[in-house]
C-alpha cells in the first residue's frame, strides 16, 4: 500500500486542527497586528475542543497510514491529554494577556502558535516513523521557543527563549544523531522495522545500538527535563510568561513522555533488559535531585520547575519497571493526574503572581483571606502533587509504587517514597504562606475571572474525583490494547 491510497481519514483531527490554526493565524493578521483579541482566544479553545471530539470519533478504531502515522488507544489518549491541556493553557492565557502589563504581546500570534504546538505534539504521539516523529517534535519545539520569548520587550523572557533555543537545538541534534545510526543499521526509519531488527543488531553491534539509545535518551530527556538534562528548565520556566511555563511543564513534558514510550517500547522493546536499569538510575537521580533542589527555592516558578523535574522522575519509574500495557496504564493515569493538578496549580499561580507582580513565594501570603476558593483549590493541587490520599496524585503514585515493587525494583520504590516525603516540605511552604501568613499590606481581595474559574474548577473536580473513584478511568484503560502494533 502506498501513501496515496491509504486511509487518510485517520488523520482528520490533525488536518482539521491545522486548517483551524491557519484560519486563526489569518484572521489575526487580517484584523491588524495590535490590540486585544479575546475572540481569537475563544476561537482557539473552540478549535481545540472540536479537534478533541474528532479525535474521539475517528481514532477510536486502530489503524495506520502506511505504518508511518498510527492511530491506537495510546495515541488517542495522549492526543486528548494534549488538546485538553492546551485548551486550559489558552484559558489561562486569555486572562494573562488581558492585563495591562502584557499589552505588548501580539495576541493573535500567541494563540495560533499555541495551536501549532498542539498540532506538532499530536503528530508526534501518533507517529511510528522517525521522520514524522522528528517533524512533530520540531513543530512543538520551535513553537515552544517562540512562546518562551513572547514578551519580546522583557529581558528575562527573551533570555529564557535564547537559552531554550540553544539547548533545545543541541538536544534535537542529539536525537537526530542517535536516529541516524538506527537508520544506518536497519535501512529503515520505521519504528516497527527497527523494533524487529534490534534484538539481532544488538548482538552484533552492541556498542552502536547502545550509543544510539543513549543519544536519543539524552535528547528526549532534555525535552522532558530529567536530571542530568534538566538545567534549562528552571531558567526557562522562570523567564517565560507564566501560561507558557504551564504549557512547557505540562503539554511539552507529557508529549515528550508519549514519544519516549513509543520509541523505547516499540523501537528498543526487544532489548528492554539492557536499558531498563539505565532508566531506573536516571529516574532515581531525577527524583532525588528535583526534590532536594526544590527545597531551596523561593521563586514560585523555579519551585514548580524543580517540582516538575521530580514528577518526571516519578513518571519514569514505570518505564524502567513494568513493560507492556500495565506500565502504560500507570504512566497514562499519572499523566492525566499530573495534567490536572499542575494546570490547576499554574492557573492559581498565574493569577496570584500577575496580581502581585512578583513570582516570589511571599506573593501567596494570606491568599486564604484574599480568595478562599483559590487557596483551598491550590491546597488540593499541592496535596495531590505531594501524593497524599484522596487525590489523583496519590492513586497515580501508589499505582506506580506497586508496579516498581512488583517489578523487583524495591530500591527505586523506596527512593520514590522517601523523596515524596521530602516534597511535602516545599509544598507545605506554599500552604503555610496561604493560610498562616497575613496578606501583604496593599494586597486586596483577589477577583477571579470566569476563564480562570473554569480551569480551576475543572482541575479541582478531576483531581478529587480521580482520587476517590480512580476506577472511572482505570477500567477504561484496562480494556485498551495500548499500542496496537506492538
Amino acid at each position, binding site marked *: 500500500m502506498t501513501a496515496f491510497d491509504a486511509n487518510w481519514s485517520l488523520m482528520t483531527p490533525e488536518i482539521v486542527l491545522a486548517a483551524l490554526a491557519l484560519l486563526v493565524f489569518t484572521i489575526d493578521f487580517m484584523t491588524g497586528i495590535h490590540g486585544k483579541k479575546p475572540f481569537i482566544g475563544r476561537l482557539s479553545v473552540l478549535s481545540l475542543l472540536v479537534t478533541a471530539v474528532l479525535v474521539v470519533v475517528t481514532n477510536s478504531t486502530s489503524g495506520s497510514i502506511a505504518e508511518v502515522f498510527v492511530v491506537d488507544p495510546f495515541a488517542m489518549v495522549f492526543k486528548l491529554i494534549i488538546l485538553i491541556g492546551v485548551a486550559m493553557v489558552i484559558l489561562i492565557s486569555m486572562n494573562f494577556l488581558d492585563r495591562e502589563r502584557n499589552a505588548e504581546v501580539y495576541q493573535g500570534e500567541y494563540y495560533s502558535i499555541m495551536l501549532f504546538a498542539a498540532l506538532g505534539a499530536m503528530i508526534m504521539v501518533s507517529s511510528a516513523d*522517525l*521522520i514524522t516523529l*522528528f*517533524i512533530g517534535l*520540531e513543530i512543538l*519545539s*520551535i513553537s515552544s*521557543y*517562540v512562546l518562551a*520569548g513572547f514578551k*519580546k*520587550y*522583557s*529581558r*528575562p523572557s*527573551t*533570555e*529564557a*527563549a*535564547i*537559552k531554550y*533555543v*540553544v539547548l533545545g*537545538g*543541541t538536544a*534535537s*541534534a542529539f536525537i*537526530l*544523531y542517535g*536516529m*541516524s*545510526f538506527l*537508520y*544506518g*543499521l*536497519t*535501512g*529503515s*526509519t520505521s519504528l516497527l522495522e527497527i523494533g524487529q531488527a534490534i534484538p539481532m543488531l544488538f548482538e552484533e553491534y552492541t556498542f552502536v545500538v547502545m550509543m544510539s539509545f543513549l543519544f536519543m535518551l539524552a535528547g528526549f530527556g532534555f525535552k522532558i527535563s530529567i536530571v542530568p538534562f534538566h538545567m534549562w528548565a*528552571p*531558567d526557562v520556566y*522562570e*523567564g517565560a510568561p507564566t501560561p507558557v511555563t504551564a504549557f512547557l511543564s505540562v503539554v511539552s513534558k507529557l508529549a515528550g513522555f508519549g514519544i519516549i514510550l513509543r520509541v523505547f517500547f516499540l523501537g528498543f522493546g526487544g532489548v528492554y533488559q539492557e536499558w531498563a536499569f539505565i532508566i531506573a538510575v536516571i529516574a532515581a537521580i531525577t527524583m532525588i535531585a528535583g526534590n532536594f*533542589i526544590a527545597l531551596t527555592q523561593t521563586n514560585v516558578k*523555579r519551585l514548580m520547575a524543580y517540582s516538575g523535574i521530580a514528577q518526571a522522575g516519578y513518571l519514569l519509574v514505570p518505564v524502567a519497571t513494568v513493560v507492556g500495557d500495565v506500565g502504560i496504564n500507570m504512566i497514562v493515569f499519572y499523566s492525566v493526574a499530573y495534567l490536572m493538578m499542575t494546570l490547576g496549580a499554574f492557573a492559581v499561580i498565574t493569577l496570584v503572581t500577575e496580581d502581585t507582580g512578583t513570582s516570589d513565594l511571599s506573593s501567596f501570603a494570606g491568599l486564604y483571606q484574599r480568595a478562599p476558593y483559590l487557596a483551598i483549590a491550590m491546597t488540593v493541587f499541592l496535596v495531590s502533587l505531594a501524593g497524599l490520599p484522596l487525590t489523583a496524585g496519590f492513586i497515580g503514585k501508589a499505582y506506580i509504587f506497586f508496579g516498581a515493587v512488583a517489578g523487583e525494583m524495591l530500591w527505586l520504590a523506596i527512593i520514590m517514597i522517601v523523596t515524596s516525603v521530602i516534597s511535602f516540605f516545599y509544598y507545605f511552604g506554599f500552604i503555610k504562606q496561604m493560610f498562616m501568613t497575613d496578606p501583604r499590606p496593599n494586597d486586596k481581595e483577589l477577583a477571579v475571572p470566569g476563564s480562570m474559574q473554569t480551569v480551576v474548577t475543572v482541575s479541582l473536580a478531576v483531581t478529587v474525583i480521580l482520587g476517590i473513584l480512580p476506577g472511572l478511568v482505570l477500567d477504561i484503560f484496562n480494556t485498551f490494547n495500548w499500542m496496537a502494533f506492538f
Partner: protein
Amino acid sequence: MVPVTFFLALAAILFCIGLYGVLTRRHLVIVLVCIELMLNSVNINLVAFSAIGPFANITGQVFTLFVITVAAAEAAVGLAILIALYRNRNSIDVIKHDLLRW
C-alpha cells in the same frame, strides 16, 4: 570505494566540534552556527548510510531534506530571538546574560 566509516568519522568529528562550540563559545551567533554544524553532521551520516550503507536506500536522503528544512526554521527562530535579545540588552555575549540563575 571509500568505506562508509570515513563519512561516519567525519560526521562524528563535526558533531564533536559543534558540541564543543556550543559549550564554550561566548558569541551567540557562533553558538547557533555550531548547532547547525551538529545538525549537518547528522546529514552527512544519513546521506552516507543512504548511499553506501549496509542497507542503502533513498529514505535517508528524504530524512536529510527534512532535517535541512527544520534546521533552517530553527536557525531563523534562533536569529529572530537573538535580534529581540540584542534590542533588549545591546549585547549578544553569553556571559552577560545572567539574569536567570539558580
